[in-house]
């Protein structure tokens, strides 16, 4: 039986981690993630989990210890934000290259400089190419649900890759929302038991992790990594189908919101998607065929499926809460790539919003949708990339 509660995103995620009962957790504080590891430390102190807690001296060591622990042969977690993820960056690639199913909530926060502790997606987008599977979450419920599903995806024998679960710093991590928890037994049953694969601690069958591989074989290893990533999408859907059986809550590779016949569409991640959906409804009320696509699985990116979902749109705006300075926003580049695949060529514009925790308001979504309606009608684009909600 589901239990309905009012909790913060961090509390919800911490409880998902407790229900998964990891063997090892490496923890290091950073705002706004700290609360997750603080709560988890409490679960360890109260004996609610079997976890050995490693209270490391940096995020670099957190991910390094996770790599060692996961290679050892058990379930491993950590959590981080922003600068912490940036410090881990080197080892993120190693965790993926060694095919270690580490699960890590990432409470999205802006990167320095200037120093800012509030939510944006620069951290997660900066880790785009590190070989981790990324699940993004609109609200606390999705963050909780994604965390439980992450274990199943990461540890699946066709995958064996690390997964990060992204949720917006403060907006979701620290806001109290209505949430349905799975019963502990139900959650534990859903996550399942950890199956070790080539454990380092099996001293009777010694294995080596992290060899030197030169040009003769390196590329074959990387292709293998590419191939396994292309299979992960199917596992994500299979796990989602199982999750729906238990909870009735349905997850796909992304969420399509009133998109079927949409002429204008927004593509937007995480919490701001919730705000934008209300505005889409308003436009629909005015007889304008507006829709919204909210990506969930960002790596591997479901290009074909996204292209199919946006095929009826004449004008699309990708809203990015991160920037690739000198380029388009990171999500824009993905959507532009997707559009190439089915030959659909909507007019595709990019707005950068909400950096460093700047509020994304319904009026922002309204301005963008109005501009899209104009573009759809005239076929003329004023500017392809623009910052919105910014002081002049």
């Amino acid at each position, binding site marked *: 039986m589901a239990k309905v509660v009012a909790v913060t995103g961090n509390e919800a995620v911490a409880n998902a981690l407790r229900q998964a009962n990891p063997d090892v957790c490496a923890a290091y504080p950073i705002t706004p993630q700290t609360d997750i590891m603080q709560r988890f430390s409490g679960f360890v102190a109260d004996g609610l989990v079997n976890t*050995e807690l490693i*209270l490391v001296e940096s995020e670099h060591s957190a991910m390094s210890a996770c790599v060692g622990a996961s290679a050892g042969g058990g379930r*491993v977690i950590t959590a981080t934000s922003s600068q912490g993820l940036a410090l881990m960056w080197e080892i993120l690639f190693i965790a993926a290259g060694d095919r270690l199913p580490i699960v890590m909530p990432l409470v999205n926060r802006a990167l320095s400089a200037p120093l800012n502790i509030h939510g944006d997606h620069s951290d997660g987008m900066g880790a785009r190419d590190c070989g981790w599977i990324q699940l993004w979450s609109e609200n606390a419920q999705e963050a909780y649900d994604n965390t439980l599903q992450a274990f199943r995806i990461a540890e699946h024998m066709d995958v064996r890759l690390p997964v990060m679960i992204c949720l917006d710093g403060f907006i979701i991590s620290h806001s109290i929302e209505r949430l349905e928890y799975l019963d502990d037994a139900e959650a534990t049953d859903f996550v399942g038991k950890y199956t070790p694969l080539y454990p380092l601690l099996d001293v009777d069958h010694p294995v080596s992790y992290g060899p*030197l591989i030169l040009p003769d074989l390196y590329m074959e290893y990387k292709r293998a990594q590419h191939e396994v990533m292309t299979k992960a999408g199917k596992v994500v859907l299979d796990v989602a189908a199982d999750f729906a059986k238990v909870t009735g809550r349905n997850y796909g590779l992304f969420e399509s919101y009133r998109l079927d016949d949409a002429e204008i569409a927004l593509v937007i991640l995480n919490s701001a998607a919730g705000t934008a959906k209300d505005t889409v409804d308003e436009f629909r009320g005015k007889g304008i065929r507006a829709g919204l696509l909210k990506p969930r699985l960002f790596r591997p990116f479901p290009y074909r499926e996204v292209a199919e979902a946006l095929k009826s749109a004449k004008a699309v705006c990708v809203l990015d809460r991160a920037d690739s300075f000198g380029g388009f926003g990171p999500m824009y580049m993905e959507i532009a790539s997707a559009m190439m695949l089915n030959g659909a060529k909507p007019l595709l514009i990019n707005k950068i919003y909400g950096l460093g925790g700047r509020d994304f308001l319904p009026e922002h979504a309204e301005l963008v949708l109005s501009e899209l309606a104009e573009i759809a009608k005239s076929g003329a684009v004023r500017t392809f990339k623009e910052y919105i909600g910014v002081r002049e």
Partner: protein
Amino acid sequence: MATTTLTLKELSKKEDRFTHGHRMCSGCGAPIVVKQLMLASDFPLVVANATGCLEVSTCISEYTAWKVPWIHNAFENAAATLSGVESMYRSLRKQGKIDKEIKFVAFGGDGGTYDIGLQSLSGAMERGHDLLYICYDNGAYMNTGIQRSSATPIGADTTTSPVGSVIKGKTQPRKNLTRIMAAHGIPYAAQASPAHWRDAISKFKKALEIKGPKFINVIAPCNRGWRSSTDDAILLSRAAVDTCYWPLYEVEDGVTRITYVPKEKKPVEEFLKPQGRFKHMFAPGNEHLLAQFQAEVDREWDRLNREAREQTPEKA
């Protein structure tokens, strides 16, 4: 210390868990250190290796010289990585999923230990993981082509502290890492030399028996970087001890004990002369460099002796 039970005859019967066929340079000191560690242990071992000569030369593609489980993560994080493995071991053992007694050993060079890996090492020691960290100290970044590290001795000619017309090699004395590790209050920190094999193996053995974090710093001559002969590794690691450049000692539960006192303290020239990296110090006009090196060695040796004397328990 039970040094008397260690005989070459007995050791020669032990299984080689670090095999031949690796690609370390001939005459390198580091594989001797690994071999001595393997001979010291009767326990199942799991080894973590920092990026460096030892790592890139011993596990390449499908081949490995290690007959024990082995993990290489990155350059600066062997201690953090092994602390993760050891934590998983404690977790699984607590849950009854592993019953064997396993020991954990990390190997890092001086670059990966004194410099880039110091934070990771310090953290692992402070957290009290049951592991032994061994630094094979060859006094520079040898794997990348002999760049100075904080373990490089004063005056040494390296590719980033070259002997020029104005600056004559490295201008700073080396960091005393063994002392820094002992200052963590860990149960065991020691210094060893492959030339004094009985002393080294005894220290490895002792460290593996002690619960908690242990650190042993072992001098490991590198004939490429030191510009010495390929058959000089043992000679030089002995000269390092006899000149008191590399004193053999241990700090157990906070008590410092010098484990080998040379009968006659040799002048540092005996250690420096066979090495091309110190050649300029013997040129006319550079006598002050030699004097500076000797003064540095004397100062550290005196300090160590003072500490050992002060900490010797009063005899009844």
